[in-house]
């Protein structure tokens, strides 16, 4: 069963706007990771947030984690056309010994 569920499935915004994607999960985790996939390519790791962290930044990316609600959000600020991609959350559930990926959010940045 899927651990991470992402919302929305698709998001289309204008260049320069902020994009927010959400991920919910079901069981306790060690960490949660966000990955990006350009069309027809492999996934690239963006950021990892541990269960004892609430917020993390990397450049234009901001990730929050709320373990009480079992949810995370990825915010991309000042979006660019090059940010067009699919974004996946992946959870490292306690005792699972593997990452479980959500179905992804397809983000389109319109110039």
């Amino acid at each position, binding site marked *: 069963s899927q651990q991470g569920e992402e919302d929305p499935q698709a998001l289309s915004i204008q260049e320069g706007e902020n994009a927010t994607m959400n991920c919910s999960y079901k069981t306790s985790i*060690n960490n949660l990771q966000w*990955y990006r996939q350009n069309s027809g390519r*492999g*996934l690239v790791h963006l950021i990892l947030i541990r269960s004892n962290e609430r917020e993390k930044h990397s450049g234009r990316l901001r990730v929050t984690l709320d373990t009480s609600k079992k949810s995370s959000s990825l915010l991309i600020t000042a979006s660019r056309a090059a940010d067009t991609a699919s974004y996946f959350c*992946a959870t*490292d559930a306690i005792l699972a010994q*593997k990452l479980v990926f959500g179905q992804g959010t397809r983000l389109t940045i319109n110039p």
Partner: protein
Amino acid sequence: DVKVTQSSRYLVKRTGEKVFLECVQDMDHENMFWYRQDPGLGLRLIYFSYDVKMKEKGDIPEGYSVSREKKERFSLILESASTNQTSMYLCASRSPSGGAGETQYFGPGTRLLVL
């Protein structure tokens, strides 16, 4: 720089053929993974390996097998390809430090079409 390579970007095979998908990583990672990715289903884990000659079934191992004879190479084998195995196949590797969930590095993917 970290690198995971897959033997083919695109592959077309016929039903019943035996298919080999190769993955090589140059990071001396002990853990390697094979996923398939289908629209609406996300990434699903087929098999993974924690070390040479070790393999573990993932969520959807039926119809697949794997081989890990060398640390840097992890092969996915479709014993008798079927049309429902048409998919994007992604290989990944991971450093074992810090537990099972640290960053995974992905190859570019192999898009397989079974006719």
